[in-house]
């Protein structure tokens, strides 16, 4: 299965199992989404539960909150990372805080899913990584899978979560990775990182499409005789501090790889966590390998902006040799 198929499969399973699940958004029904993530679901589950909405992100999310407080489990698609901003007000002002505002009376069991990240030579606003914006909002959970298997398990958990989940899909690897994924239902807990490779010299933390780049860099670190521990964050919030801290205590060094602009980012948060909880174990300054604090360039400039395996290796080597 590809990541697209895995998410489709997760939605399909939940639509079949739970009558309260509805799936909608722009072009989600007939077309199956611009990336075909929801393809075939309308045919199978009907136009009342899988449908096209008018073009209005704020209303898509605002209405989903209404559905959620009244007993449905909406899963909405926002078409691209850069088009989640019209819905930002609803997400921040209401979705994230309805539980708190109603002192627990209402909850918002809903999933807001959208493709994110660069690397596909897209138009403006189609290549952004706004995970920090959403992780910064109290009340939201933010999930980013890096494999088809994880995407399926995490999506099912997200749909079953009684808290609202922002589910960001790395569009660059939507179809780039194929993997055996179990047919039936399974879940992967939200809030748990995964150690993909054990190592002793340096901890490398990444998520989404950057995992694949880190794995490519790992081929180089191996050649260079560096033992690299690779951790897939999988959930941005709540962040799995324990796995990170334990790893840094072992390696003494940390490199964080992510696509978003570096300042005030997930990378910044991880550096802070490591400083607070494992300061005395550090043998080198923590390093963030991240996007520049610039507008994401259009396709012609992407090669400069995108983080290559070489650049990851370069920073790892410098950190290890500090």
């Amino acid at each position: 299965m590809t990541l697209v198929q895995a998410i489709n499969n997760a939605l399909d399973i939940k639509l079949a199992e739970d009558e309260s699940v509805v799936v909608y958004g722009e072009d989600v029904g007939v077309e199956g989404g611009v990336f075909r993530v929801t393809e075939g679901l309308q045919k199978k589950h009907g136009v009342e539960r899988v449908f096209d909405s008018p073009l209005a992100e704020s209303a898509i999310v605002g209405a989903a909150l209404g559905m959620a407080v009244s007993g449905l489990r909406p899963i909405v698609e926002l078409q691209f990372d850069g088009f989640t901003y019209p819905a930002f007000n609803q997400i921040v002002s209401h979705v994230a805080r309805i539980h708190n505002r109603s002192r627990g009376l209402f909850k918002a069991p809903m999933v807001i899913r959208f493709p994110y990240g660069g690397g596909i030579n897209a138009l403006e606003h189609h290549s952004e990584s706004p995970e920090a914006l959403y992780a910064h909002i109290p009340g939201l959970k933010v999930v980013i899978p890096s494999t088809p298997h994880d995407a399926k398990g995490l999506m099912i958990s997200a749909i079953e979560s009684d808290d609202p989940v922002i589910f960001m899909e790395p569009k660059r690897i939507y179809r780039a990775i194929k993997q055996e994924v179990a047919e039936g239902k399974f879940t992967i807990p939200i809030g748990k990182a995964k150690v993909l490779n054990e190592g002793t010299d340096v901890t490398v933390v990444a998520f989404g499409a950057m995992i694949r780049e880190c794995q490519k860099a790992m081929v180089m670190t191996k050649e260079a005789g560096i033992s690299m521990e690779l951790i897939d964050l999988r959930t941005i919030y709540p962040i799995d501090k324990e796995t990170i801290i334990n790893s840094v205590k072992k390696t003494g060094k940390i490199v964080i790889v992510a696509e978003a602009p570096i300042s005030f980012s997930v990378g910044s948060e991880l550096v802070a966590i490591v400083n607070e909880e494992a300061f005395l174990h550090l043998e080198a300054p923590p390093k963030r390998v991240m996007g520049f604090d610039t507008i994401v360039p259009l396709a012609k400039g992407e090669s400069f902006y995108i983080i290559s395996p070489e650049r990851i290796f370069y920073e790892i080597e410098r950190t290890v040799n500090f």
Partner: protein
Amino acid sequence: MIFDEFDPKEDKIFRLIDNEGQVLNASLMPDLDDEIIVKAYKEMLFARVADEMAVSYQRQGRMYTYPPNMGQEAIAVAAGLVIRHEDWLVPVFRELGTWLAKGVSLKEIFLYYMGNEAGSNFKNAHHVLPFSIPIASQVQHAVGIGYSIKLKKIDEVAFTFVGDGGTSEGDFSEALNFAGVWQVPVVFTIQNNQYAISVPVRSQTKSINLAIKSYAFGIPGIKVDGNDFFAMFLAYKEALEYARAGNGSVLIEALTYRKGSHTTSDDPTKYRDKGEETEWAKADPIIRLKKYMDHKGIWKEDETALIEQYRTEVDKQFEEAEHFTPYQLEDVFQHTYVDMPDDLRRQKLEYEQFLTWKENRK
């Protein structure tokens, strides 16, 4: 004002020539010189040729995603004839003909769709904002420009465009509301090309038409046959005069059809049927205007030669865009800030060090 005669509440549509190019309403036909009509036709034809070639460049892998304009040329060219040098254009991403009319070069348009920001600095075109990708967000800027014009008491008008899908966004209603309250000189055009990607207008709104939305905001609105060059021209002419006279904004719904795909990454056969396409093909704005000119005997040129000449011109501009200065690291950093923070300079420096390392490693 024709806006009074064609009440969107009654779902009337303003049209001057039919699909065969026959005049339907001689008393309202705008008084246009033959040369202007011929010029408009040529501009439509040029836009069509450029558009078809853009799609083929994309298919050849020489350009990234591109949104075709085929079928919507009458709106753009009619607007282009009316928009004056000092007027503002606040466009959406599907605006080839209007950009050209306003002085944006094809080379710039191609550069942008080749993924180079250098293409969206329209230094040779006056008062044109960059391409807007987030739907409907740009219409508010036109309202702000309108306010600025009103405050400065200058003779300018802002023209802005939005798709049928875009009318569902809150931004659209908010902008019209401000425009109504502030009574600013803005001409809003809804290019109703029937689809927002795969979603047809009937799934977008339950309004009987889109022009009627003007009612709610207290400004005049009209539904026009967007494939009828003359009707579009007259609507724009009156809209411009109305706005210039200090009466405020107007809303034009231009009824048209997107002949091509939504963008080059899209496949309309998934959501559109052939019958519908054939039906709309009969209303093609270029064919209609040509038929009109034939009836009047005002078209004398060899069209095949003309198209060949246009193809050469388009190709020349495309190649200029293709051979534009190679993209530099500098280009990524430029213009995020007017006053670049030191930290950003440092980020660039660090990256250059990496590039040097990479070079030496080879």
